């Protein structure tokens, strides 16, 4: 069996001052996990190495760690893949040890065990994480649209492992940020039709300066989450619901910023930065006639930066200096953009791939099957073909719709 080296960030408060690195070599089947490696160390080399673990199957959420800098579950990280990741580190190539550290943004208790209570759990409790239905429950079940239950399954899938909290870059800069785990949990209730405090929950999180508009939109939590909860996506949904469905203005100018940006593109097609700045703080006529103290502070705070920009020549043209003078798109393009707006604002469809999945792509009979299948991202990679061909060349066929869902077992009467 191949050998792997684990470079572990240790902290043994009773025997040694401060954290330190220690390397261990393990013999492991390449299909097994980094956690299996750590347990081998614990069982046969050094029983003082501690790591929380239980199910080894990515369901209990105990073994949150950072592996090669990535916050994840140790049991879910295959050791051969971790080795590949270690070998890819910039600077040196090949034969690097796999770096294992405790989760970030949390105090370390010992080795890979962190204090989750003071960060993760305290923040989860802050969002009132229990159902608040109205009045007495019905005799039988609450009747709710089936889609709503499937929708909140995404945030219900959270196993409270803390990987997102560990990876959160906003929290690194602002430890008071409510955080991805708590906010994903908040969505679990906001999205549940049986909860009667939707507006109150949204208001509370929008009025907290470290709430839903403190997220720096960096996707780190989406990458870290082992369960596909995509906490950042849940935060964006909270913003959408607060801003659009419930008309809630937050203390961070987030809603104003969002609306300003959206309106500017409708009118101009591309971004008018100075107008955006202005409108994010003091929106519309009312916003200007009666600016909030936050708006005044924000606008004045932006002045030094603007002045510097003018001085170095970044912002010399009228279009940049004066908000609103920015040109529209050429020709009738702007009108078409406006039409896009009316179509989209009418429907506001929200496709969630966690729920719908991706369609199977079935190639034409005479074509080789697409090696990527339903792979995502930029599609295939044939740049030279592009310069020769035109749009006549038949591309992929349209995806074949998936077979109908089988009827519910209770409709069939037992199978």
């Amino acid at each position: 069996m191949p050998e792997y080296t684990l470079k572990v960030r240790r902290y043994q408060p009773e025997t040694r001052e401060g954290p330190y690195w220690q390397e261990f070599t393990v013999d492991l089947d390449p299909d097994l996990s980094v956690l299996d490696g750590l347990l081998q160390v614990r069982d046969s080399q050094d029983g003082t190495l501690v790591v929380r673990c239980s199910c080894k199957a990515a369901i209990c959420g105990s073994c949150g760690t950072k592996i090669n800098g990535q916050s994840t579950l140790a049991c879910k990280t295959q050791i051969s893949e971790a080795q590949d990741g270690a070998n890819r580190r910039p600077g040196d190539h090949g034969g690097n040890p796999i770096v294992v550290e405790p989760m970030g943004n949390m105090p370390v208790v010992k080795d890979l065990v962190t204090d989750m209570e003071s960060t993760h759990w305290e923040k989860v409790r802050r969002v009132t994480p229990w159902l608040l239905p109205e009045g007495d429950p019905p005799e039988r079940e609450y009747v709710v649209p089936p889609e709503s239950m499937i929708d909140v399954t995404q945030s219900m899938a959270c196993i409270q492992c803390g990987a997102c909290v560990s990876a959160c870059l906003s929290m690194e800069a602002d430890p008071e940020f409510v955080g991805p785990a708590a906010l994903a949990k908040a969505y679990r209730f906001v999205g549940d039709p049986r909860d009667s405090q939707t507006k109150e929950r949204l208001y509370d999180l929008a009025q907290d300066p470290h709430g839903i508009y403190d997220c720096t939109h960096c996707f780190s939590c989406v990458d870290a989450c082992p369960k596909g909860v995509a906490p950042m996506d849940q935060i964006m949904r909270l913003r959408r619901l607060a801003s659009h469905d419930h008309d809630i203005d937050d203390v961070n100018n987030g809603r104003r910023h969002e609306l300003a940006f959206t309106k500017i593109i409708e009118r101009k097609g591309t971004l008018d930065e100075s107008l955006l700045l202005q409108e994010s703080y003091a929106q519309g006529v009312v916003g200007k006639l009666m600016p909030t103290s936050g708006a005044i502070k924000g606008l004045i705070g932006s002045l030094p930066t603007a002045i510097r920009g003018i001085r170095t020549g970044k912002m010399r043209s009228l279009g940049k200096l004066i908000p609103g003078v920015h040109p529209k798109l050429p020709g009738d393009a702007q009108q078409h953009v406006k039409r896009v707006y009316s179509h989209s604002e009418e429907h506001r469809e929200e496709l969630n791939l966690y729920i719908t999945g991706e369609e199977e792509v079935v190639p034409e009979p005479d074509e080789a099957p697409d090696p990527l299948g339903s792979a995502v991202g930029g599609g295939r990679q044939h740049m030279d073909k592009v310069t020769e061909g035109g749009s006549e060349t038949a591309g992929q066929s349209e995806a074949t719709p998936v077979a109908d869902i089988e009827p519910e077992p209770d409709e069939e009467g037992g199978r």
Partner: protein
Amino acid sequence: MSDLKLAYWPGCVSRGFTPELHGSMALVADRLGIELLELDRANCCGAGVIAEHNQELADTLNARTFALAQSTGLAMMNICSTCQGAQSECQQRLDADSAYRAHINDALADEGLEYTKAKDGWTNKNLLWVLVEDYGLDRLKEKVTRPLTELRVGPFYGCYVIRPKHRIGYEEHPDRDLYLESVIETLGGQPVEYDGARKCCGFPVITMNRDTSLRQAGTHIADALDAGADCLVTPCPLCHLNLDMQQPEAAKVTGRDLGLAVLHLPQLVALALGFEPKELGMGKHIASTEWVESRLAGGVPA
């Protein structure tokens, strides 16, 4: 090998507050022999902000841009990490569901536009990916006339071009989060490893939580300085805004003297291709680029 020809979406900010980016890109494309067909009728990608407000709107706006590109018969290039990320997210949804795609295409029909999934292998790629995957680093190296020897460059990717992994094409291109280092090396420079290289510049929250925003920018710049970087390079103009334009403010928030030059990716490439800093609008930067210029001139010792 024939020259590269691409539909080109320059984004909003490159023509707005970072005009030096737009200018440098034109120079670089010309020198490298990349023909860019600018999509002047295309619209903003939404930067993830419009999607917050109305997801379908963001998808439709980007479908329009994609369709405009597709109608040229060319693959698309962008010069902004944020455009890449926002557009990839929309493209993922469009590609995943034919009914949804048809619904979105309804909105484009009036203009005679249609987004077709995987049409002739159509892709949308950031300049960074184009350089490595389509132009080729060997070819790039041949064009270098002034190797950036002794220049220690800290890469700053920008969140939207490296995360989330499942959406940014790592299955086919597992090294996309190492490309900046490769490009720096190809240009003769020395990549500097530091904590903030793949973290967030804070731009998305600059109006929402100024402290959180600038603390991030300031911390990463400080880390790069501590690691010995002469400058940063970034493929994202929004990152550039927070790292360069806001640098003095970021210094105040973090209580540290900063003063680290931040270059746009095309500027770094252009320098290695022999262009002079002045041609590249480096004088417009807030954080002075003098140090970089002197390092290139070989004057000041490390």
